[in-house]
């Protein structure tokens, strides 16, 4: 193991050195495998639980700048230790369990919430040779652990023995369950383009980033993932002014801290997944030879996605629940179905026509997406025009007197002004 491999491909180098060490100690190869797996799990889980410390600081600073203030800058250099201070504060709080709460379910919910999020990091490829494990159903596995998170919220809300927690949990689960439909459908598009559900294969198939070949699917995936996390504008889950804190009213101290960490990590995972599925993951100049560069590219793209999530949070108001469900079932689901139909037909026709160059394929699929976007725009503007006509016709009858008066005022105004 020379220094060159150690720098450019550290994980594989260390792993091989450790495997040799363990086999020299006389362990059977299977046991050595399990030990290496446990070490890998420790690394991935620790990094993904320590990362939120930085993510929370990053978010608070960015949101603060967008609100024309500075954000935490006292504790440590530039306020970097603020989250550690908050974690310490949460650790020394009293653990209050409400009367009548179902003890087992109440304690299990935050743990399940965290498991649901960090398990996603087991299949994300960080570099060409660094991935937790390459499941052949990676994309579907991501959705399945996401649904465990939904379950955790339901459990947390129900077991708190509190009306508002239950109400918050119901609305949350209705939202999460609804938005899983277009999430699955838009997840299908990179799988179609890469012909595999394995995330590593999807990244390798992106000679041209999939966001060029499927921009509408990328948009749908991003928006529905943000809705799945429960971030503004979809944060009815914790609409503080409406139902206090939603399903985690009765949670204090570290249990609340775990829900909190899970939400921030999930928000970052949204950026990471968008990077892997649509922005080419760890691909970049030189990533094949020096996998450590791949990690850098991946982190850059993931943070770019996370930055957009923070932008959405600080700029957009909260969406009402019936608008949110309308948006999902009457816009996103039909749009996602249309994207799949167009992509499937387009890709097969392109394939049958014998066009194999990745840039040509992606360019033609981009044109297909443009056509679909044009159709959607035509349909929506037609519907809007019809609605405006109806409203004008409805107002013309009962607003006749008021309109005439307003017109008279308007005419009197410009006439009166020159007299002054």
């Amino acid at each position, binding site marked *: 193991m020379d220094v060159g491999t150690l720098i450019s491909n550290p994980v594989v180098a260390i792993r091989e050195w450790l495997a040799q060490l363990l086999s020299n100690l006389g362990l059977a190869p299977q046991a050595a495998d399990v030990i290496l*797996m*446990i070490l*890998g*799990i*420790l690394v*991935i*889980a620790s990094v993904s*639980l320590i990362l939120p410390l930085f993510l929370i600081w990053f978010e608070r600073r960015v949101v603060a700048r967008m609100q024309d203030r500075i954000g935490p800058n006292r504790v440590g250099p530039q306020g970097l230790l603020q989250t550690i201070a908050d974690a310490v504060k949460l*650790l020394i*709080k*009293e*653990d*209050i*369990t*409400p*009367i009548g709460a179902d003890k087992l379910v109440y304690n299990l919910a935050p743990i399940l919430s*965290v*498991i649901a999020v*960090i*398990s996603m990091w*087991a299949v994300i490829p960080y570099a060409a040779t660094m991935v937790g494990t390459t499941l*052949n159903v990676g994309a*579907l*596995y991501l959705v399945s652990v996401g649904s465990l998170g939904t379950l955790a919220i339901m459990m947390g809300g129900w077991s708190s*023995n*509190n*009306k*508002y927690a*239950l109400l918050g949990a*119901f609305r949350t*689960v*209705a939202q999460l*369950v*609804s938005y*899983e439909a277009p999430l*699955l*459908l838009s997840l*299908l598009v990179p*799988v*179609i383009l890469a*012909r595999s*559900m394995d995330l590593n294969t999807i990244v390798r198939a992106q000679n041209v980033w999939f966001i060029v070949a499927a921009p509408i699917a990328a948009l749908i995936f991003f928006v529905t993932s943000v809705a799945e996390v429960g971030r503004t504008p979809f944060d009815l889950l914790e609409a503080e002014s409406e139902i*206090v804190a939603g399903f985690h009213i*009765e949670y204090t*101290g*570290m249990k609340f801290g775990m829900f909190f960490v899970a939400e921030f990590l999930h928000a970052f995972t949204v950026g990471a997944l968008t990077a892997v599925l649509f922005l080419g993951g760890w691909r970049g100049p030189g990533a094949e030879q020096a996998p450590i560069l791949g990690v850098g590219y991946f982190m850059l793209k993931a943070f770019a996605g996370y930055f957009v999530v923070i932008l959405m949070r600080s700029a957009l108001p909260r969406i009402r*629940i*019936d608008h949110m*469900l*309308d948006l999902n*079932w009457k816009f996103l689901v*039909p749009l996602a*179905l249309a994207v*799949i*139909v167009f992509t*499937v*037909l387009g*890709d*097969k*026709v392109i394939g049958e026509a014998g066009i194999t160059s990745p840039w040509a394929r992606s360019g033609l699929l981009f044109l297909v997406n443009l056509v679909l976007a044009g159709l959607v725009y035509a349909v929506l503007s037609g519907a809007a025009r019809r609605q405006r006509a109806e409203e004008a016709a409805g107002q013309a009858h009962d607003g006749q007197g008021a309109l005439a008066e307003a017109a008279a005022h308007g005419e009197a105004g410009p006439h009166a002004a020159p007299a002054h």
Partner: protein
Amino acid sequence: MLNEWTFIGLFLLMGAIFPGVPILLQSLVLGPKKNNPVKNSPYECGIETVGDTWVQFKVQYYIFGLVFVVFDVETIFLFPFAVAFDQVRLFMVVEVVIFILILAGGLVYAWRKGALEWV
């Protein structure tokens, strides 16, 4: 393949330990333990709770879940097709488009019947 899933299994098991340690640390070791009935009562903006702790459950929740199940199953059917996309011919793609259109018709029916309203 079993090797890869062993990783996932170990990950889920160990993933229970990572959040469990701070929680146990806080509740058993570090946090004060001064229970009194007022602190433990359910929270309702600082006043006493009124009524039982169940909520009238609207049937809209259930309908949304139902429509979601149908679309979930449909998407699951499409995943193996997506993986086998290289081998299928054009007329098979048309068959899958028919599959999708049948279910899109169901969505339109639900829309027109007002099942997707949240009232």
